[in-house]
């Protein structure tokens, strides 16, 4: 059979893959041996194998060598340690003075009536024992009486840093609200009166630029017919505030008032008007 360069080019794959008949194979090899162009092409393809073998040998050598340490990991660990130290320093700076006596802190008015039915009060390590004990069910009729007598409680504790996100997904921190009077209302869809009171407060005081209102929730969706800014909690403890409670932060970032958005609404309104 007659084999030319074009035939070899077309059947080169078949030649390398042993798919040619003996006759074709013999003719093709005979042509390649006598044709400089086809010989060069064939040799170039065959020359790849030793290159790959060398490449593989070197790669295997690298894989077999025991590794001790990664500089990159050291850099990463160093960066992580520096970040942790910075976070600790920040926490220390923001923490209340050691002597800021807890005795002066008036225990928080829990929103027992406003709590969502079936919702277990969360225990917070930062909370005072008084707070925690009051979150437990109180036997007898004493608890409602006491709650009725005491309006919103004044507290003197620095607000802990918090992180919330607006519906667009942007994060907001306490630091952004320094120099403003911030009303943080924690609400739930199951508490329409809390939402209504939050909206009333917002409509009444939002025109004053020194006030900022944050309606924080763990649930998705904005309540109908409301205009106050809704924020989603990003895991902040918010000093253990439950749904239905508010926190009033002063311009210096300290918590000035805390209580129920339903029971203590009047005292909160009065306080805001006086500012």
């Amino acid at each position: 059979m007659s084999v030319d360069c074009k035939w070899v080019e077309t059947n080169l794959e078949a030649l390398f893959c042993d798919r040619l008949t003996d006759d074709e194979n013999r003719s093709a090899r005979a042509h390649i041996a006598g044709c400089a162009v086809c010989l060069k092409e064939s040799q170039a393809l065959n020359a790849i194998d030793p290159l790959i073998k060398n490449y593989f040998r070197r790669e295997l050598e690298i894989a077999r060598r025991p590794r001790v340490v990664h500089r990159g990991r050291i850099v990463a660990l160093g960066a992580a340690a520096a970040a942790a130290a910075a976070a600790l320093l920040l926490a220390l700076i923001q923490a209340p003075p050691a002597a800021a006596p807890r005795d002066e802190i008036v225990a928080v008015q829990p929103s027992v009536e406003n709590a969502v039915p079936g919702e277990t009060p969360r225990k917070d390590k930062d909370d005072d024992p008084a707070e925690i004990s009051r979150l437990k069910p109180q036997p007898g009729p004493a608890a409602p009486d006491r709650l009725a007598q005491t309006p919103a409680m004044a507290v003197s504790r620095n607000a802990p840093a918090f992180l919330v996100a607006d519906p667009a997904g942007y994060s907001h921190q306490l630091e952004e609200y320094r120099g403003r009077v911030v009303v943080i209302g924690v609400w739930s869809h199951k508490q329409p009166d809390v939402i209504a009171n939050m909206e009333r407060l917002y409509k009444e005081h939002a025109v004053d630029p020194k006030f900022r209102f944050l309606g924080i929730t763990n649930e998705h969706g904005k309540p109908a017919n409301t205009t106050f800014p809704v924020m989603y909690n990003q895991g902040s403890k918010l000093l253990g505030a439950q749904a239905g409670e508010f926190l009033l932060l002063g311009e210096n970032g300290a918590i000035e008032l805390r209580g129920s958005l339903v029971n203590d609404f009047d005292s909160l309104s009065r306080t805001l008007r006086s500012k």
Partner: protein
Amino acid sequence: MKTVAVRAEVIDFEAAAREHRAFLLQIAVASTRNVTDAEDIVQEALMRGYRGIKGFRGDCPLRIWLSRIVVRVSINHHRSLARRLKRWVFFADLEAVYEDGSQQEFDPADPAGAFDHEAMLDVRKHVNRLPDEFRMPLVMLAVDGLTIPEIAAILEIPEGTVKSRIFYARKRLKETMAGRKGRNKA
């Protein structure tokens, strides 16, 4: 007649892992693009093999069955988002220090000086640019004692396909490397 369970139970996996570890490392090197991950890939594959040994039907040699796992782990390893992110963030990870104090930089130096360093850099670059289906059979051909039928069994494709892919890988590599030479001359 031996059941599948009996077949799996008679295998001493620990001894088999010891025996085939070096071979599996070669398969891992041939199938991964980042050779420094090869040990991790083998370890992961052996763990998966140990957990799934009851699924071994005995229709192929154990080392081929383990090699298939290595290839799959290697592909998943490469695709892993976390791995890619890690590479992106910790770029300095490419630098490694070995016990003997020597370093691997972005491309390891040739300790014996046996190869043209620039050419080897090129080979690595061009081999890594080949698609997996072409790169794996081509590099596996360099594994000690691995034949075309075994490569076909590991990659679970017909022998003819293996040969064809090896041919096209060679051809593409030849073209890209010839292109570089042409540019250098120009």
